């Protein structure tokens, strides 16, 4: 599904990713953990196609295709989804209108006909139940005035509607209380399946109690320094980054 080979990426000439190798197979859930400044969000951004990052070396294959050559929208249409750490507010466009445009762009790409209003509404209702999203959030402008928890839940709702093959969850747990975290995790778990892979990026082990990963990777200073099963997250929780010999600090300038 996803193969990252020796990926190097920089922001404004500062190298953040320094040679990442990672293989995610269909249906697998991988957790990427790491201290602040380790490059977690950069990895998510590079995979989704954020143009603030320059890839200087290496390659990323998605279903055998060169992912880095694709525009962000093309990646999305091919089935890559990024749940944002900081979901963006779009005043003036309702959540539903926005999602219908996205769904139809993806369907068009796949050679399918556009969904009419009725069919789209049916899809939305179905997915809302899964995520337990409040009805009025559909008619409100995208993320505008949403609470932190509602924004994150809305991201998972988008994911449910867009039905991606590879979902990247960038610190979906940040800023959530335990109830919101559980609700978001329930939504994510409901979307797990043999045809969907996930990269769950998080600073804390907490989220992984609810979304149990197949593999855990620890990212430090732009490299994966340790990989293991789900027990690695627990070990990290016990010993801390320092206990595993990893510095948890914010580098100067971040």
């Amino acid at each position, binding site marked *: 599904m996803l193969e990252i080979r020796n990926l190097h990426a920089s922001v404004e000439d500062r190298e953040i990713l320094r040679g990442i190798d990672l293989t995610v197979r269909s249906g697998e859930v991988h957790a990427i953990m790491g201290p602040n400044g380790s490059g977690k969000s950069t990895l998510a951004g590079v995979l989704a196609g954020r143009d603030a990052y320059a890839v200087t070396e290496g390659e990323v294959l998605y279903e055998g295709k060169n992912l880095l050559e694709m525009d962000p929208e093309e990646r999305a249409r091919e089935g890559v989804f990024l749940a944002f750490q900081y*979901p963006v507010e779009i005043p003036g*466009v309702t959540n539903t209108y926005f999602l219908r*445009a996205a769904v139809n762009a993806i369907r068009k790409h796949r050679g399918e006909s556009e969904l009419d209003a009725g069919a789209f509404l049916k899809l939305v209702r179905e997915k809302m139940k899964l995520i337990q999203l409040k009805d009025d959030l559909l008619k409100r402008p995208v993320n505008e005035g949403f609470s932190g928890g509602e924004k994150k839940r809305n991201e998972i709702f988008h994911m449910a509607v867009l039905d991606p093959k590879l979902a990247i969850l960038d610190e979906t747990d940040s800023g959530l209380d335990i109830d919101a975290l559980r609700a978001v995790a329930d939504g994510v778990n409901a979307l797990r399946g043999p045809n969907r892979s996930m990269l769950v990026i998080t600073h804390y082990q907490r989220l992984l109690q609810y979304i149990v990963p197949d593999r855990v990777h620890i990212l430090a200073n732009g490299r994966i320094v340790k990989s293991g099963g789900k027990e690695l997250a627990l070990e990290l929780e016990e010993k801390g980054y320092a206990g595993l010999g990893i510095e948890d600090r914010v580098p100067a300038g971040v």
Partner: protein
Amino acid sequence: MATALNSELSTSKTHLDAFTELEKSMPGHDLPTIARLRRAAIARFGELGFPGERDEDWKFTNVGPIVRTPMRYDNGLSPCVECGSLPHGVQVLSLKEGLNRFSELIESHLGQYADFKQHPFVALNTAFWRDGLFIYIPPGAVVEPITVVWSTEHQSDIPALYYRRLLIVVGTEAQFTLVEDYHGIPQTHYLTNAVTEIVLGERALVDHYKIQHESPNAYHLATTQVVAPYKSNFSTHYFGMGGELVRNEVRVKFTGSHAEATVNGLYLARGTQHMDNHTVIDHAMPHCASHELYKGILDDKARGVFNGKIFVRLDAQKTDAKQTNQTLLLSDDATINTKPQLEIYADDVKCTHGATVGQLDEQQLFYLRSRGIGADQARSLLTYAFANDIVSRIQVPSLRQKLERTLLEANHLPKLEEGE
């Protein structure tokens, strides 16, 4: 009968001569108050002349093309009025007819607020109006929206000059919604010179909308003057889309305390359109609040001007005034001159202003694209969203839906479905 002005209008003398010729045929010429008003206005125009570059208020808007275009005076038809059933006592009449039936009322208000002494085009309108509309809402009446539609006639060789005049008198505690709609036959060349005076009674509530979609070749010069007394509440939304050279002024004067005004606007300019928005909010009395939000979207080589004056007079303590101006530039060749002008003489007030000029937000663009929406459609959607922020504030559902559709079509976006 149309009177042609074959020589250029560049000398105000042409207008003075025309006035002498037309005066006896104008409505109200037999009413001393109206005749005096017209004469005072044309005399003042004679002194002011047309504004030039050195006139601070017209620094960024060159009226040369208007002044140099030979035009003919139009007969001045009264506008089309669309309204539901009107409560007892509500009057909706052409100004001409109004002068026959309610001359005292009209004489006591007409030309008393829109200041022809300071404004050459208001002076011309006050001197030359041929017909217009008079609306009277009696105290306490609650009136369904009234739409006033001004349209143009078929084009002759000489561009037409339309003087549009509206007088709205709203009684104490009345509630009233007014929609002004200016449009013209596409590709025709004409000038609209419009003056609207709206006088609110105490505790009255008026919701005003102005839709300006003149022919892309037209000129539109307009002033809306509002008088807001004690505890009245006035709200206006301007939507400017048409016209080659447009100057729209909205002026609100608080004449009593505890009044509130909302002054919002949206203008969309492309090609070589020039759109100038001037607003003046005069906090002459204490404890009044004004909220102002103007947004502009400029594409191609369009030029925009925003000038927002707020006066807070010495006695206007506890004023709460907020002004925001946001401009979206979609092309490198589009330009905007934006200028807030706050003159504050009272010391216990809250006044804020802010202006932003920029392109579409990169974070928002990426967010949309990351969901599969193509770059072009994402830009369209964000442009629509920027404008819809104003449109969504319209309280008249049919008007809001109509403008939403216009915006979506202009941005090549799919229709809205129910619930969106």
